[in-house]
């Protein structure tokens, strides 16, 4: 039972990070049907910005949690700026172009951002400070669920609630939903579609940056390449849950996290990825649109 709980919380933590990143993929896809391959890089940039901020803060003598919050906020701001610029530079000029063009542009941006960080920083792994302290009250259960996992779970939970409120209750959220349903119609009723699209990128980037900061302080290392694998996994989660669906991304992320954790724990970590992608294939065969996705008829 204890082993099950250990794997359960391990999978939950991993899955909630996947979900955070997957939200960015799914929101962008929902609105402009673009798979933003550079999204994983935003996650990585978030982690790097936090690392730099943490370094500076440590010099000024701040302590763990305050650094984490400050670094998190600055990382989010930076990532938002990157997301906004990314959309403006790489995708907006291609708005009317065939669907393949922005996709290639996305892959190009992904490679560009990776190499930019590689050149500007280093190709080495860098140590990321343990910003999440070990809380004393967690000590008896630390081997099952430790303080970092707790902080990650609480943060992602709050973030997701805020996101839901934003989409369901605010005027901006209503405009986003309208744009998702029918971009031209939304434009006709006075929604500034371009701004909504930018905003979607900004929100997605903020989520990715939060994920990046949390993961980096959890595992304690960053590298210019971490965004790629995380991006692939999160994209898988988004597809699994039904790309374009926000609850689907969360569900997909959690299922993926658990699948990996239990497959590694009960079967073999040799085949961790085999099981997760096998699961993806299986779900796509049974439900081609993903778990919570709606299939739209495409007019070709």
């Amino acid at each position, binding site marked *: 039972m204890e*082993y099950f709980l*250990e*794997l359960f919380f*391990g*999978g939950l*933590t*991993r899955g909630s*990070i*996947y979900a955070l990143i997957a939200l960015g993929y799914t929101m962008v896809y929902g609105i402009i049907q673009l798979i933003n391959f550079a999204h994983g890089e935003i996650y990585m940039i978030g982690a790097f910005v936090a690392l730099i901020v943490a370094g500076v803060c440590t010099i000024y003598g701040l302590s763990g949690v305050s650094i984490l919050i400050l670094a998190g906020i600055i990382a989010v701001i930076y990532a938002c700026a990157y997301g906004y610029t990314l959309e403006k530079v790489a995708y907006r000029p291609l708005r009317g172009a065939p669907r393949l063009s922005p996709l290639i542009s996305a892959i190009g941006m992904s490679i560009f951002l990776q190499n930019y960080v590689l050149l500007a920083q280093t190709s*080495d*792994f*860098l*140590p990321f400070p*343990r910003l999440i302290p070990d809380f004393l009250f967690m000590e008896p259960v*630390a*081997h099952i669920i*430790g303080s*970092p996992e707790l902080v990650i779970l609480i943060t992602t939970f709050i973030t997701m609630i805020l996101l839901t409120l934003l989409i369901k209750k605010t005027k901006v959220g209503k405009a986003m939903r309208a744009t998702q349903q029918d971009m031209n119609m939304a434009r006709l009723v006075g929604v500034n579609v371009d701004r909504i699209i930018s905003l979607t990128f900004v929100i997605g980037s903020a989520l990715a940056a939060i994920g990046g900061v949390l*993961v980096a302080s*959890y*595992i*304690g*290392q960053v*590298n210019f*390449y*971490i965004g*790629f*694998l*995380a991006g692939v*996994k999160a994209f898988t989660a988004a597809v699994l849950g039904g790309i374009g669906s926000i609850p689907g991304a969360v569900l997909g992320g959690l299922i993926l996290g658990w699948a*990996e*954790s*239990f497959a*590694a*724990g009960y079967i*073999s*970590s*040799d085949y*961790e*990825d085999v099981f997760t992608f096998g699961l993806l294939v299986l779900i796509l065969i049974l439900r081609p649109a993903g778990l919570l996705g709606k299939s739209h008829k495409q007019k070709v």
Partner: protein
Amino acid sequence: MKKMTVLISTLALVLSMSVTGFAADTIKLGVAGPHSGDLAPYGIPAMKAAQLVVKQINAKGGILGKQVELLIQDDQCKPEIATNTATKLVTDGAHVVLGHICSGATKAALGIYKDAKIPVMSPSATNPPLTQSGDYPNFFRTIASDDMQAKMAVEFAINKLGVKKVAVLHDKGDYGKGFADFAKKYLDESGKVEVVLFEGVTPGAMDYSSIVQKVRKNKAEALVFGGYHPEASKLVSQMSRKRLKTIFISDDGVKDDSFLKVAGDAANGSYVTGPRDLSSIPLNSAATAEFKAEYGAEPGAFFQEGYSAALALLTAIEKAGSTDYDAVTKVLRSEYVETPVGKIKFDSKGDAEGVGFSVYKVENGAFTELK
């Protein structure tokens, strides 16, 4: 008339050269390895080492009253070229051969030398079967074979740490899995230890919490990991996060300052194997200094091993008193020789005793060699 003079003088020149060639009986040291192509950086340092050694010995009057002559042949690390190289060296009358560099090329060439009864010593071919198969009694090497570090790590875990249950993990790569496979083999063969877990982890995965929990569940006292430092530092930090006290033992790929830097405090108490620290050996620094004086640069890969091999081969000829195959190999197997890689002699299979790896312990953020 003029033509005639030219012809005669040429003839005289050729004759005189061949006469001196026959007259001055030399000890011929063949050197084979990649001296061109993309793997040349692995071969050239050993070649230069041989040149330095020979120069030094000749300056002192040579061996057994004869000068040492170098026969240098390029094999580009390619097995098909290596056989030609070997044939050429054999025809040219090499008495001993320093080489080859790559394991594949060495294996291809060894049979030819064996038939010609020529002792061969490689400074770099680490493939275990080259010595362990027993197929090549003429083969020696001044570098430890690939499985030596796994053996070292396993013996350390069993004899010094006294663990009974061990988990073996690897990163699924050639190097890491190779190390892990050998570690498992030696652990099983020891009969004293149970391998409770043998699995690969995915490099670059977000976290290793499930595998860490699995190690805990199997009650492993030590975790032997084959792979490189990014995964190793992730593993040790997650182990410390999960309050797992399993002893972490790993390989040369982890013995890197990045491991100390990235894993930080979590690395303390880990053990890694790595090449012995040779800087305290006087001959080692002397050889480096000699190289720097001659070429004005750092020696490069396998220089010390190459230097040692040349020294060991030529010393063996001197001690044997001849270039006779049986006499030379007997000396190599029985007499110690001072070289830049330490005071060595070769075991019955041809591996150098006293060459190889040490266990390092991570203490206060630094690697400390355990004697």
